[in-house]
Every structure is written in C-alpha cells, then in structure tokens.
C-alpha cells in the first residue's frame, strides 16, 4: 500500500494527483503506507440497487504516511485500532489487525 509524495514540496496525497495541489508540480514518489489507525468505521448493511443484507465494514484509516484512505476491514474494529493495509488485485484497500 503506497501513497504519493510530491518530489518538489513533499506534500503527501492519496489518491495520486495529476499535479500537486500544494505546488503544482507533477513528479511524485511512492511512499509506504502499510500501517494506519482506524478513525471511523461503519457497518454497511444495504447497498443501492442490491437486494438483501450483505454486511461489510468500511473504514477511514489515517495512514502513518499522512493521507486518509477508505478501506474495507476484514472484521469490525474500533476507532483507534492500528491496522495493516494491503491492496487487493482488484484495487480494494483492505485493513486487518496485525
């Protein structure tokens, strides 16, 4: 799991931008963001256009690199829990307690 730091000014962002919102430059380096802390978590019961209940846990995770990411948790965790983050092959960011 990586986030993106502007080479020119050091602004760290996720998702990656075309131009840095801080300085306008377009060169970024990847920064490791494999650890984070759960800030908010919601239990998702229903999705638009889908029948039936299929529980998922969606969280805002503050990464140790700075940016917040939206992740699916493998299990319901409380805010403040430290999690490891990985990116699945379909692009889903998944958080799990180490």
């Amino acid at each position, binding site marked *: 799991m990586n986030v993106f730091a502007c080479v020119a000014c050091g602004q760290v962002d996720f998702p990656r931008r075309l131009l840095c919102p801080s300085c306008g430059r377009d060169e970024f380096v990847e920064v490791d963001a494999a650890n984070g802390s759960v800030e908010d978590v919601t239990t*998702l019961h229903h999705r*638009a256009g*889908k029948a039936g209940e299929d529980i998922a846990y969606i969280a805002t995770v503050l990464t140790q690199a700075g940016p917040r990411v*939206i992740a699916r948790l493998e299990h319901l965790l409380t805010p403040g829990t430290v999690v490891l983050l990985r990116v699945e092959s379909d*692009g889903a960011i998944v958080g799990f307690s180490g």
Partner: protein
Amino acid sequence: MNDFAGVSIVAAVEVPYTRHAPAGTSTAGLLAQALKAALLQAQLSANEVDGLGVASFTLPPDHAIDFAWRAGLSVSWCMDDCHGGASGINLLQHAARAIQAGDANVIVLVSGDHFEAADFTSLVENYNVTTRTHLRPLNTGGPNPLFAMLTQRQMRTSQLTREDYAALCIAQREWASMNPLAVYREPLTLDAYLAAPLVAEPLCRFDCVPVVSGANAIVLTSSTHRCAARLPVRIRALRASYNVDHQHGDGLVTGLAGIRDALWRDANLRPVDMNFVSVYDDYPSMILAQLNDLGFADDQPDLQTFIHERIASRRLPVNTSGGQLSAGQAGAAAGMHGLVEAITQLRHEAGARQVDDARFAAASGYGMVQYRYGMCANAVVLERGAAQ
C-alpha cells in the same frame, strides 16, 4: 462585478417525481416536460429561447446541444453542467452572467434524470475515476458509507445523537405533507425513524434520499424582457467554492464557510433576514454543515439547540418542499430542486406550505463526492422582485 443586476428569474417548475416511472419514461422526455412547463409558466414560446443549460447524469450519449436540437431550440448560448448537487446554482451563475454580457436574452435551465436500476448502479460505481478505481472495489454501493462516517464525525464533534438527526427528517416530512409533489408525505415519527432499517451505521433508511425519476427547470431573462414584469425573482448574491480543501479535511466544513462573508456582503443582507432556506440535503449531517457554514447557527449555543429550537420548531423554515429526503432525489435535478422551491416560495405559489410574506431566501448546492466527501459548494441569495 459581483452584482447580478439586470437579470430576472421568471419561472421555476418541477415535473412530478416518481419512485417507479411508467414504461416509456426517458430522461430526455422528462427534460422536455420540464422545458414545456417552464415556458408555459413564463408565458414564452420556444422560439424566444436563445440560451439553454442542461444538467443530467443519464442524458448521454446526448448532451445539451443534442437536447436543444431534439427540443427544436435554436440558441446562441449552450452549456452542459456536470456538478451534480451544485449544478443548479452553477448553471444559474453562468446563465445570469451570459444575460448580463448580452450573450443571450432568454435562458432555460433544465435538469433531471430517469434511472433504471442498472443505470443507478453504474452511476454510483463509476461516478468518477477515483470512485471507479478505489471505492468500487470496496463494494460501497455509492456514497452512503462515506457520509455515515462523516455523520459519526459530526456526532462526536457536536455531541449529536440519532434523535437529533431524526428531528431534521421529521421536520422535513412535515413540510412534505403539504407538498403534493413530494413522493413521501405521510407523517414520520421518532419511533418509526429509530426502528427503520440501518443502511450504513448510523444512517438509516430515512437519512438516505429516495432515488426518483423527475426533472426541474427555471427560466432567466433580462429584466427588461416582458416576462420580467410579472413575479420576477432577483439574484442578490451568488458565490461558489470548489475543491476548497482538496479532501484533506474531515468534510464537516464545506466551501460555504469560506464564501459566506462575501455572499452576505454582496447581498447586503444577513442570515437573520432570510424568510426560509433551501439547503442541499443528500444527508441530514450536510444540512447542518451547510447551515452552520452559512452562519444560520451563529446565534445558537450549539447545533443540537439549533436543530430543535430553530429548524424543528419551524422558526427557520428549512427545505419547505420536504427536501430530497422526502420529495426524492432525481439525479442531477437534486441540484435544482431546492432552487425551484425557493423561487416558488418567493413567487408566493407554494400553496399550503407557503411561508408567510416570503421576500428573501438562501439556497445552497453541495456535492460531487470525490474520495471522502463533496468537492462542490455554492449558494445564492434570492429576493422577490416587484411586479410591474
């Protein structure tokens, strides 16, 4: 130039929203109904229209110019708008400037959508590149989980409870009971709210807008046009703020906070002067965020008091149509719904829900969720003009 002199809003209409539109319904057809109704209200013929603005998620592959051709319009000003919940006020801003600049004299703005089930799923999964890349794989089913977490943050920050959000929904449902065009008009009780199925905790069904099919339209002319002599509505001020924090914040403060001083200064009015407010209500938490950002809660000790003493009590009429939460969210028409209600109230044509002696109103737009919350916020202050 921050004034909108010389511009009048001369019509505002809503094509009835429906939860389950009849077979044969199309987005273009709904927009055409809105166009026809707006011209009828303004007492205009189609060949007098020389400007068109369109906001719709489901009109593609057609665009505004295709709709203009299909509707038989020849125009000198034409605009597509893709700002969702901010589209109505965004269109209004650009259309008013076009009239001031002389690029057009009679502009119709239409917005609306008709969703089949697959259309809506496709929209929420492919709302933008960020959604498609990072949220769709999470199977979030749209923005509900994002605003559930935003609501949690607001609950913590402002010490609010689900009962407080219920009061907002119940108040809007009471307004909806007097709006024959609202899709949900039956009374909502606190018990029913608390017993409703949870969608994304803490949001329940009543915190999430019902998706409908429908359309809205407004007409602007120069103030010297004959249409402007009858029930004109004027723009006192309009400001917009997009991408104000680049998604680095918590979403509890919208772009309105940064423009409110300029908005009220331009209008030469204050929040207390407003007879009512139309605020974009995709979720109850965003009603509070926008009203707070615009300064409507400045004289209140906290948001909880503001909810119960000002909104639930109707001392400040908010979303008198019932808002999207009760009237429905017709796609991009959501960005024009509150604007149409404000104009209708200022024309004193709101029937049983008419606010007494309505002269001034504020309306806000909000939306276009990027990664964690909306990118766009705008607001307009309107005034009932003098008939001549």
